[in-house]
C-alpha cells in the first residue's frame, strides 16, 4: 500500500491492521496528554 493510502485510512479512522490500530489509539492518547504541554 502507498503512504498516501495509509495516511488517508488513518485520517478517516478506518484502519483494519491491528498493530496500526493500536498505534492510532496510542497516538490519540498522546495528543490529548501533550496538548497542554508547552515546550518553548
Amino acid at each position, binding site marked *: 500500500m*502507498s503512504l498516501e493510502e495509509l495516511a488517508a485510512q488513518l485520517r478517516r479512522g478506518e484502519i483494519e491492521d491491528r498493530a496500526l490500530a493500536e498505534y492510532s489509539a496510542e*497516538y490519540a492518547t*498522546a495528543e490529548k496528554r501533550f496538548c497542554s504541554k*508547552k515546550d518553548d
Partner: protein
Amino acid sequence: MTVSGWGNETVPPPEAVKPAKPPPLLLQGQDYLFRSQPKCLDFQEQVHRLGMVDEGDGSPVPCVLVLARAADMEMNELSIALAERGIRMARIDADRSVDLPLTVYTDQPLLELDRWLLRPLLVWRRHFELSALPLEPGTLAGAYAVDQWSAVADWLSSRGDWAHVNPSRNTSHLNRLTQLADAAAFGLRVPRTTVTTRPGRTRPGGGRCIVKTSGRHLLEPRPGMQHGLFPRPLETSRSGDVPESAPVIVQEYVPSETELRVFVVGERCLAFQVDKLDPAQLWVDPEAVRVTPVDVPTALTDRLLALARHWRLQVAAFDLLVSGGDHVFLEVNVNCDWRWFEHRAEDSRVSDAVHDWVAARFKELLGAGKGR
C-alpha cells in the same frame, strides 16, 4: 573561633553547619514536572516497520529527515501530513537514539536508517536534546555516548549537501540576549535587561522586574524528567542579596494590554493574541490562558520577516507584548510549539502552513535534482 599558629583568622565553619544556601531563584517553589516517554509516535516509522508500505526497488529514497524527540507532537503530525502528500519522512529521536541502527555516508549524501536507504533533501533539527538520551548520568559510558551523538547530530544538522530548516549553523548562537540586541537593531522596542548572579541588586528600569532563564524553559536532569523554569516577578524578599549559582536574566516589567505570539512560516506571519495573568500560566495553568487568532499589522510583519531572514529562520515564533499600541519584543523561539496555541484557539493555520511549506521546499529540492 581561632586556630593556634594562624593569628586570629576566623576559621570557616565546617560544611555541615554552614547556613543552607537557598535554591536558585527560578527553582524556588517550582514544582512543574513532565514525564516524557520515549515511545515512538511517528506514523511513517510505524507503517514502515510493520512492512505495510511498498518498499520500492532499493534505490535511495528522497526524504525529510527530522532530529527530534519521540514526544515532539509537531513532528509527529508532520509525519502524517507528509505521508498524505507521498513524501517520506525519517526520524532520529534523541530519547530513542541509543543502539539505533544508523550508518551515514560522508562521500555521498545518503544514510541507512534501520533497513532503509535514504537520501535526505531537507533536515530539521528541533528538540534533539542530549539530556534526553536514555543513559546513566555520571558514567563514562554515558558521557561517551552523549559526546558521540553531540558531534554527529551537529554534523547532520549542518551538512552542506543537505538543505536545512532553521540551519543550526546560523541559529545555534541565537540565545535570548543576542535576540534582544538584534531585535533592537531592527527597530523593535525591547525591555531593559540585565544578566546577573545578583538579581536582588539589579533593577533595570528602576521599577518592577521579571526574572527569566538565560537558557531553556525545561531542564532535563534525568532523561525523560522535564522540570520547568518559568519567568516570574522578581521579589526582593526572596532574592535578598544571595548570589545565584548561575546568571539569570532580570528584565524590566513592561505593563501591557496583551501579548502576541507570531509564527513566521516561510514568508508568512500567523498570529495569536495571548491573554494571561501570569507569565508562568502558559506552562502551569494553560486552561486559564485565552488564545485568539488575530491579524498582524503590516509594519510588524515587515519587521519580523526581516529579522527572520537575518537569522535565517524559516519556521519560528516571536513573543511580543502590546504596550501602549507599541510592540515590545520578548524573544523568538526557534524550536517553537504551535499545536499548543492551535489547540487553545481551535485553529490549524500554523500546522497547515508548516506542512505546506515543508512539502513545497521538499518538492523544490527534488525538482532541482537534489534527489538523484
